[in-house]
């Protein structure tokens, strides 16, 4: 099973904290700039949250006794908790995020509170798309969205060149697979309406 190695400068084979592997498993990490992008997005989200809380504070004036206290406490407590999460989450996200592309699969391990491990067989990939929002555009980052018939998986915050290499590699792998199938003799498949 060959593994996508990419360019130098990105920590190849870095230890995978979630699996405890020694770092020879081919998982790759993101660029540190991803944290700046996340902080900017969180900052915008936090400004919206503060605006909503200010508006809600004005609505809570007429609430009865204990509910007024609970509401005021929530309107102070929730932004405080969110602020702590927003400060702490990006480094944890960066530290945990791993992705790996081999010749038959794409894997991602990520998460801050909830850790997920995603496995997408290359055989199931229908479409590969590179997307860049305005913040990522400024930072030279991009997301690669992999579409299957059952849903989408996204490798976030890749450097643009890296994203293009990943997309190119995936397209190459899919193309090779399809070409291989074209050259395979097709026996008649009974009972199926498939191609």
């Amino acid at each position, binding site marked *: 099973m060959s593994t996508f190695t990419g360019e130098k400068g990105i920590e190849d084979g870095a230890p995978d904290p979630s699996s405890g592997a020694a770092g020879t498993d081919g998982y790759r990490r993101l660029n540190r700039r991803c944290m700046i992008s996340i902080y900017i997005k969180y900052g915008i989200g936090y400004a919206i949250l503060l605006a909503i809380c200010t508006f809600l504070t004005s609505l809570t004036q007429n609430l009865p006794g204990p509910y007024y206290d609970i509401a005021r406490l929530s309107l102070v407590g929730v932004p405080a908790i969110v602020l702590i999460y927003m400060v702490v989450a990006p480094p944890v996200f960066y530290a945990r995020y791993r992705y790996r592309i081999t010749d038959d699969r794409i894997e991602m391990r990520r998460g801050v509170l909830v850790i997920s491990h995603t496995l997408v067989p290359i055989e199931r990939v229908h479409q590969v798309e590179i997307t860049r929002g305005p913040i990522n555009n400024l930072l030279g980052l991009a997301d690669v969205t992999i579409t299957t018939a*059952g849903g989408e998986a996204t490798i976030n915050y890749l450097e643009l060149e890296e994203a293009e290499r990943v997309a190119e590699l995936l397209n190459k792998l899919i193309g090779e697979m399809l070409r291989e199938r074209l050259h395979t003799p097709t026996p008649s498949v009974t009972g199926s309406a498939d191609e």
Partner: protein
Amino acid sequence: MTGTDDRATEDLSGTAHQQGEAKIEGKRIRCHPGIIIERTLPYALILFIGVTQLGRPVVAASLAVIFIAAILINYRIWSRTTIKFDDTGVVVERDTVFKRKKTIPYSKIASVNVNRGITNRLLGTSSLLININSGSGATVPEAVLTFEQGLAERIRSGILHRLHDRSDLQDDEDEPVETPALFTPLDVILHGLFNVSTYQTVSGLFFLFYSIFQFYVSARTDVGSAGALISLLIFAALLVGPFTSQIFYYYNYRVYRRGNTIYLQHGLIRSYRTSFDVSRINAVRIKSTLAARLMHRSCIEAEVVGLASGSGQSLRPVLCLLKDDATQQALLRELLPEFVYDRKPEKQPEGAKRVLLIRAGAASLVLALVMIYPSIYLYREAMAMPGVAGHVLPYILPLIAVSAILAIFYAVYVSYRITEFDLGDELFSFVNGAVDRETVTMNYDRVQMVVTVKGPIARLFDVARGKIYLLSSTGGSSITSGYFPERDLNAVGEIVMARIASGDYDYRKNSL
């Protein structure tokens, strides 16, 4: 007219069954003009309601203009829309202001079904629904074409012959066939009554009792009955509506298999004739609501992409209405042996119990905190009330809160006990649901993505949940497992990969 070969339709009307499609192949035909009436009828309804209810001449005249415009537009669309069945696919071409040419290759067609509504019955037509395997368009058919009833059946049969290219496909679906199970009108009624989710049933009954209480109060006091009527309407929407629509939908239900094709026939006012290849089934669900389980009944649903009728009905074909468990199992073995295997289920580990208990504890705590103030308030207000109310009402909210907390912990106990996961050679399954139970059997070769998820509490006890992404009847969706060791859940993905690598996975049978 746009060069349509009108003779094509004439040729077909008297054609032998198997030659039906051959006669029209390569010729451009139009739909039955009844489609104009079909598409204009909703406007007629709006016109009727508008004129009778609003009664203003200006409004009536405006609606009449809109109605006439709708007729003219639909006539123009009908007259300038042609359908061609050529060697490779169906080409639907519309030469109106908004031009459109849609080519549906036969290789991509997932199903061709025939529906007949009231308008169809009056006009002697049928709607031919062509579906393709598409996650994005899973809820609506790719093309809906109206033809004279016989012609629609012949075209459908012709396309099915072309799709399946089989000798075992019978020419006439009406030919007597031994059905694996008989469904009586009582089965249909029981299905309509007890296949509605327990939460929906409880909510519906709550609104029914509340409306009765409101009517009782309004009869004895000056309070109006508007609240009671609203509650009654919600009850009707939650229970009466689904119940009656299920009965109408599944009336005269019939299911059978010929070769590799499953056939479904049902419907009272609108009749449905649906068929799909077994290879199109991505997963099978055996479902039983709490009430159904008490009667030892369960039903079977299949995840099949490309069966949309666009009529708002369930997109998951039911392969067995609520029947006793033994009949349901026998029917599954006979109808879909491909989805039957010897299960060796794995129960959730001890860690899962702890995670579930912590979650239940947190939910109970939140509930208790929310209920404290209303309970104290009601206690103070109701203590002064005379009679029975003064004795019962002060304690009602704490009692409800305690009952809810007990229900949460009981649900956790049941959920821990019944949740299963099991890996077979070609199939695997999840069993979920403390109240409404569901066993989902999935084919490894249809798995698109596997995700394992571990929250902070689950990590403490070394368990995770698995999410399996499949192409479902409603587009992409995931099926979630209970809490199991991560390595066991990861085995699903590894088996999928191993089947691809070893060649056990045949893309020709499974490509979408």
